[in-house]
């Protein structure tokens, strides 16, 4: 089990009903973690239109997660 710090933005924030949470998970990649969270929170955004950041840096979806990692799934951005 890994302990992961999560922060949620935009539509994911609305769906999760919180801005941040800490979870224990068996998921070993960001992709697996997102699948797990889809089942829990009912996220409807496809990973195909998103990016993922681990410890505040963009990374591949299949990057292995480590205990204590901070993970943010990045919905389509709309700044500017």
């Amino acid at each position, binding site marked *: 089990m890994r302990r992961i710090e999560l922060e949620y933005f935009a539509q994911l924030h609305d769906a999760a009903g919180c801005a941040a949470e800490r979870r224990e998970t068996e998921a070993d990649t960001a992709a697996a973690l997102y699948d797990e969270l889809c089942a829990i929170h009912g996220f409807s955004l496809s990973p195909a239109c998103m990016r993922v950041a681990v410890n505040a840096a963009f990374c591949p979806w299949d990057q292995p997660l480590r205990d204590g990692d901070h993970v943010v799934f990045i919905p389509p951005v709309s*700044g500017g």
Partner: protein
Amino acid sequence: MADAPVAIGVLQRELLLPQAGGFCSFEGWVRQTNDGRAVSGIDYKAFRPLALTEGQAILEEATARFAICAATAMHRIGYLAVGETAVWIGVAAPHRDAAFGACRFIIDEIKRRVPIWKQEHYEAGETGWVACHDVR
């Protein structure tokens, strides 16, 4: 990344270098309507640490790609009313081609990849996340 209005004049003065002959700037303003809906304001949220590093990376890429002297970008976070300046980009260069090119590059890249999200507040009372950009 600014939580309150910024004095643009101060940002611009830092770009006033003696070798700069052309200065191009872009501002994004909160518009009154979007897709035909009346907007009362926009709430900007950011994943700040990544937005800052990504913004800095974009300015460095612009400096490498275009013959410019200096570039700055500012993005407001929080609730903005119609008419407020959400984003400001300023580029100083010896010649105007580079100033225009770099300024356009920076705003395009900010819109494409900086983790900032806008939630529009409509006159009718609802809100909505703006999911995808107009690519104009």
